[in-house]
C-alpha cells in the first residue's frame, strides 16, 4: 500500500477542535484536507488491492500452464481474497482443481455417430453415447462444423467393463494362430454379451471344428465326435462328418484287433521254438480264440507242460528218496510252474519244507 499518503487523523482532530472554538472556517478547511487525504488513501488502497489481485492471478496462470496445480490453486484463492468478484480467477480455480469432464468434437463432413465414437472413444459401439450426448434427434442433424460436447471416459472406469475390442482382438490373434483352446472362452464371453456377434459365433464353431479335426488326427475319435457335437447345426451340419468318423473308428478298431492277434501269435510261436513254454502259453492266451490255430497251439502247450511238470515231479521224488530235500523242493517248484493247479505238488513242497525245518531244529 502507498504509505506516502499522510494520515488524516491530525486534520480531523484539528477540525473538531476548531469547531469547539467556533473557528468554523478553519474547521471546514481541515475537514476538506482530511476528506482529500481520505479519498487519496481510498484510491491508493484500491489500487494496491487491484495490483495484488492481478499479480497473484498472473502467477496462478503461469503455475496452471506449468501444471503446478496446488500452487495455482493458492494463487487464484489469493486473487479472490483480494478481489472476491474476480470471475477469471474463479473460473481458473475451478479449472485447476476439477477434472476435465468433456471433449469438444467438431463434426466433419460425412460424420456419423459411429465415426465420431471411433474418433473420440476408439470404439464404434459407443455411438450410443455420441447419439445421447449430442442431443440430436437424428444422425441427419450432424451438420459439418457443429461442436459436440462429449463426456470424457476415465481409463480406470472403462477398465471395469467387459471390453469388446480388447477381447475380440485377442480372440482374432488366437484364432489366426489356430490356438482354438484359447479362442473358445474369449469368443464365448463375447457372444454372452453380444449374442448377435457373427464373428465370435463363427470363431466358436470353427474352433470346435478345428479341435475336432486335431483330435481326429490323434485317433481320439470319441473326443473328436464330442467336439463336433458342440457345433451349432445352423452353422454346419456335422452329422455326415460324425458318421464318417464313426466308420473310420470301427475300421480302425478292426485293424487294431488283427494287428494285436498277429503280434501275440508271433510271440507265442517264438517262445515255443525256444522251449519257453510258460511264456509261449501267456502270449497265445492274448490271441483271440478264433485266430489261426491258436486253440490247437494252447492245447499242445498244455499237454507239453503237463508232461514237463510230471518229469520234474519225478525228479523231485527221486531226490526226496535220496534224502536230498533241497533238490527235491527245487524240482517240485519247477513242476508247479508248469502245472500251477497241481495241488499234490504244492502239498509235497510244503511237507518237504517242514521236514527240512525239523531237521534243522534237531541239528
Amino acid at each position, binding site marked *: 500500500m502507498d504509505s506516502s499518503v499522510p494520515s488524516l487523523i491530525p486534520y480531523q482532530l484539528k477540525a*473538531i477542535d476548531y469547531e469547539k472554538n467556533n473557528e468554523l472556517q478553519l474547521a471546514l478547511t481541515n475537514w476538506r484536507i482530511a476528506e482529500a487525504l481520505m479519498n487519496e488513501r481510498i484510491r491508493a488502497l484500491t489500487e494496491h488491492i487491484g495490483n495484488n489481485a492481478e499479480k497473484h492471478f498472473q502467477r496462478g496462470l503461469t503455475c496452471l500452464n506449468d501444471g503446478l496445480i496446488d500452487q495455482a490453486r493458492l494463487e487464484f*484463492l489469493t486473487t*479472490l481474497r483480494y478481489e472476491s468478484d474476480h470471475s477469471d480467477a474463479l473460473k481458473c480455480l*475451478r479449472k485447476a482443481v476439477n477434472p476435465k469432464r468433456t471433449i469438444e468434437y467438431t463434426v466433419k463432413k460425412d460424420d456419423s455417430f459411429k465415426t465420431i465414437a471411433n474418433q473420440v472413444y476408439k470404439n464404434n459401439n*459407443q455411438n450410443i453415447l455420441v447419439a*445421447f450426448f449430442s442431443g440430436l434427434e437424428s444422425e441427419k442433424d450432424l451438420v459439418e462444423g457443429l461442436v459436440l460436447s462429449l*463426456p470424457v471416459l476415465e481409463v480406470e472406469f472403462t477398465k471395469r*467393463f467387459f471390453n469388446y475390442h480388447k477381447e475380440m482382438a485377442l480372440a482374432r490373434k488366437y484364432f489366426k494362430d489356430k490356438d482354438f483352446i484359447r479362442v473358445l472362452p474369449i469368443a464365448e464371453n463375447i457372444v454372452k454379451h453380444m449374442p448377435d456377434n457373427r464373428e465370435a459365433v463363427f470363431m466358436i464353431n470353427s474352433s470346435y471344428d478345428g479341435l475336432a479335426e486335431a483330435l481326429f488326427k490323434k485317433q481320439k475319435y470319441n473326443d473328436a465326435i464330442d467336439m463336433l457335437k458342440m457345433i451349432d447345426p445352423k452353422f454346419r451340419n456335422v452329422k455326415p462328418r460324425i458318421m464318417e468318423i464313426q466308420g473310420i473308428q470301427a475300421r480302425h478298431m478292426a485293424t487294431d484287433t488283427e494287428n494285436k492277434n498277429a503280434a501275440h501269435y508271433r510271440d507265442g510261436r517264438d517262445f515255443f521254438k525256444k522251449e519257453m513254454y510258460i511264456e509261449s502259453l501267456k502270449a497265445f492266451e492274448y490271441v483271440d480264440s478264433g485266430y489261426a490255430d491258436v486253440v490247437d497251439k494252447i492245447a499242445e502247450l498244455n499237454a507239453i507242460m503237463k508232461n514237463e511238470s510230471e518229469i520234474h515231479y519225478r525228479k523231485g521224488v527221486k531226490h526226496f528218496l535220496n534224502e536230498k530235500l533241497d533238490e527235491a523242493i527245487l524240482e517240485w517248484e519247477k513242476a508247479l510252474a508248469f502245472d500251477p493247479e497241481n495241488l499234490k505238488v504244492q502239498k509235497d513242497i510244503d511237507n518237504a519244507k517242514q521236514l527240512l525245518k525239523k531237521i534243522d531244529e534237531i541239528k
Partner: protein
Amino acid sequence: MKWNSSYGSWIVLVCVAMFFGCMHDSFEYSTGNYVVVETIKTDTLETLAGKYLNDTGKAWVISEFNKIKDIKPGQKIIVPLQPFNIGGIGPEGYQLVPVLNYEKLKPTQENQVPEPVASFEQQMDYLKKNNFQVISFTWFMEFLNYTCQIPEKSLVITLDDNTRAVMDIALPVLEKYGYPATLFLDPANVGTENGLSVEDLYALKEKGMAIQCRAGWAIDADVESKKITLNQYFEALKKEIPRSKAYIEEISGSPCLYYALPPSGGNNLLNQFLWKSGFKASLTMDGEANPFFADHFNIERVTISPYDSAGNLATKLSVFRKMELK
C-alpha cells in the same frame, strides 16, 4: 460486489461513526452496502438482523462481520447489507463445509462397536453446543455456486438410511433442534420390509425434510463383477435414473436435483448423464469437507456412524483449511 470498494466504504463508515459517536448518544447512518448503528438497551443481534436484514436468522452476519458474540448498549455496530465474504476466504485460509452422511441410523451387528457411544440426539446436541450451523443443502449449493455467504461453522446433514429409522430416530431429533436435512432415497427401497413407506415419505415432506435421489446399487454390483458392457451400463442409467427422478419429484412435489452416488463412487459418464438429465450435483458416499470451489458432481460427504462419540465426531467436522493467502 468488489472487496476493495466495500473495504473503502467500511473505512469511511468507521470514520463517520467515530465522528458522530463523539457527538450523539445513538445514531443510524447508512450507505448502499452498510448501516452503522449505535446500539440501545433493547437491541440484540437478532433484533438488528430482523430490522436491517429482514431475517432474525441472519444474526450471524452481524456477529461475524463485527467479530462479536453479543452486543451491549452504546456499541457501534456495522450491519453489512450484502455478503461480505462469499467463499469464506481470509488471509489464513478458506472455509470448508462438512456434508454429514448418516448411512445407518440404527445400529446393526455389522457396525456395532463395543465402547460407549453417543446417540444421534447427543451428536445433534454436540453440534448445537459447539455453535455449528446446520444449513440446508440448497443453501450449501449456493455457497458452492459462489453466490452466497454462509455462517463460518456451517455443515449439512444428509441421510442415506432408507429405513424406518429415519422416522423413529432422525426426524424427532431434527425437529427438536430445528435442523434441516436431506434424505437421499433409492425408490427401490420404498415399501420394503423395514423400508420407508410412501406414507412415511409424505410425512417427511410435510415436516420439511428434502428428498433427493440415491443410486440403486444393483448396477454398481454388475459393473464391479464385469457382468456388463459399458453400453449396457449406459442403457441401465437411461432406464433407472429418469424413473427414480420422476418418482421422487412426484413424492416430494419439488425438483429432484441432487444424486447420491453409489459406494464405488462416481464416474464421469454417470455425472455427465446426471447433468444432462437436469441434476445439479452428485454426492459421494464418503470423503472430506468441501470448499466453495468443490466439484459439483463429486461433492464429498463425511460418513457419520450413530456410534461416533463426540470426540470422534469433532475430528470429522473440519470447517476451515489453513493456507496462507497473502
